[in-house]
């Protein structure tokens, strides 16, 4: 097995796979983390009185604003709902990429290594 690992590690297509996968994973993970940070800022820095100013307070204040004049629903509710639905969307996007394109590349890399191992024998 170790022999196969070495062969794969020497294959440039393996590093292409790894680069593609990590670019996809980290981009999507950053989107999620940014949303979570946004959510936590809203909870942590929501101004206790109207006079508080500052960037974080302004970001947080938006969450408590009604979506329309006289509406009870606040932006925070919509943002929360969209975040949950959006996270599901990102997961579905990832699985399509990973089970399709990336897995095909992975199978090709393994096949390369098997062939190379066969040639050496």
């Amino acid at each position, binding site marked *: 097995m170790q022999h196969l690992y070495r062969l794969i590690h020497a294959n440039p297509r393996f590093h292409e796979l790894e680069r593609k996968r990590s670019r996809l994973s980290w981009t999507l993970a950053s989107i999620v983390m940014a949303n979570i940070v946004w959510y936590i800022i809203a909870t942590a*820095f929501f101004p206790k009185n109207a006079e508080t100013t500052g960037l974080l307070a302004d970001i947080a204040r938006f969450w408590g604003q009604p979506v329309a004049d006289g509406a009870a629903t606040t932006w925070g509710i919509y943002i929360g709902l969209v975040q949950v639905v959006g996270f599901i969307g990102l*997961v579905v996007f990832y699985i399509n990429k990973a089970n399709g394109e990336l897995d095909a590349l992975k199978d090709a890399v393994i096949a390369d290594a098997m062939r190379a191992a066969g040639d050496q024998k």
Partner: protein
Amino acid sequence: MNHRAPLAWLLGLSLLAWAGSAAADVATALHNMFTLPADTSAINSKAVAMFIGFVLVSLGITFWAAKRTKSTADFYTAGGKIGGFQNGLAICGDWCSSAALMGVAALIYSNGFDGLIYSVVPFGAWPLMMFLLADRLRNLGKYTLADIVSLRMARVPVRTLVSSASLAFVIGYLIVQMVGAGTLISNLFGLHYEMAQVIIGALIVVYVAFGGMIATTYVQLIKAVLLLSGASFIVFLVLQKFGFSMNGLYQAAVDNSPLKTGVMQPGTLLPDPVNAISCGVMLIFGGAAMPHVLMRFFTVPDAKEARRSVAWAASLIGYFYLLTFFIGYGAIAFVMKNPEFLDAKGAIIGGPNMAAIHLAKAMGGDLLLGFISAVAFATIVAVVAGLTIAGASAISHDIYANMLRHGQATDAEVVKVSRIAALGLGVLGIVLGIAFKGQNIAYLIVLPFTISSTVFFPVLFLSMYWRRLTTTGMVTGGWIGLASAIVMLVVGPTIWKDIMGNPEALFPYKYPALFSMSIAFVTMIVVSLLDKSDRAKAELASFDDQFVRSQTGLGAEGAAQH
């Protein structure tokens, strides 16, 4: 007296707290374990009948599963043969404890919008698990988290750390569930608290000891279906009252709540920014590394199915969390001003935790109340079963097979030890459940999440992503992180001040995860970089092989059966 139990627990001496209470209490407890209350008219027969239905079905499945549970692989991972969709449902069953249904509703009922932080932020753990952990976990794992970590690290020190932390996690979570179940069942079913402990403990032992992971999976699967359909039905009825206008519901909540428009705004729950950030860190990173959930990634054949199960799990759990946006506010609209659910002082009967249950009654009468009560009971049983199998595998696979017998034990011996461990955990659950009766156990929820974010997340993340991590670094950082988390919890406001009655907490924050996780990460990195031993060099050299396996699944357990 009040401060004794949590301390004793933290020292692993909670048995003393129980034995130390008067002998008469023990006699009453024993009596209550096995007898019905004198006033049987309080028993909710519809709820009991539906719960008995669930028990009969699940026992039938256990009987069927027991015949299929022969090897250790069957016991821990159902032979790696569960399909993606079933596994996704089972993960949803593992994840959505009664806290997700009743706890979030209770927080929204009391604090409004901020209660949703317990829905959205932990849900963020799911995409993170998918993008960063799922493939690699499946490709590297076998039965437990310790298997992944010990692939290129020294077996004994790593397993000692991970299995100890797993047991602390399991026992902490177990107490929360058992005490919650006892209170719930005495309220809902009209049975004795102690009897509820015995019923749950006995069911868990039967499921896990005989049916292993196969039975546990199906119990969770059924529970997930019941929970999702019950919660959906409540939300449907709530929205129907407002002609399916979301704003109508929220307007009613604003009108009823003493917080007025504040009920729709953040900023009421957490006392200051540091606590809020630390709580968020705990929920997202702790949620992403819980052993009883991650263990389910090993029950599928390969990384592709692991991704499918995470996608299903994330969709179902996300759907459930969407429902929490309506259940808590529904309770404000229909329970808060309804005299049927309020005591003489105008407070909600049974405390805010009952908000979701009362809402079920307000919406669908006794029948829906009975159904939701049975679902809540089934939910607790299923979560405790998942925890028990995670604990039993830490004991039998990590401690017994790998550390005590150095991998020389036979399959039959290990399965036997697993069954004994499940029995032991069941009994321990009953004893601790009774010992902690009537205690405020909310703080105990913080413990497993803090352990998870402080030990499991850094250990897993660095071992898979960082070449330079060494055994010494990981183990030093893990133990120091764990110790700092426990110390900060004990001297923090909840235990030191509120429970032990000291005037001022030594550590000012309720949620230590931000600090303890940083301590663990920094220690692991610094110690690893300073580690120039030969073992460290060998570990560094073996990273590439592990990396190829984690990316390709070549050589993964149970993957290539041809």
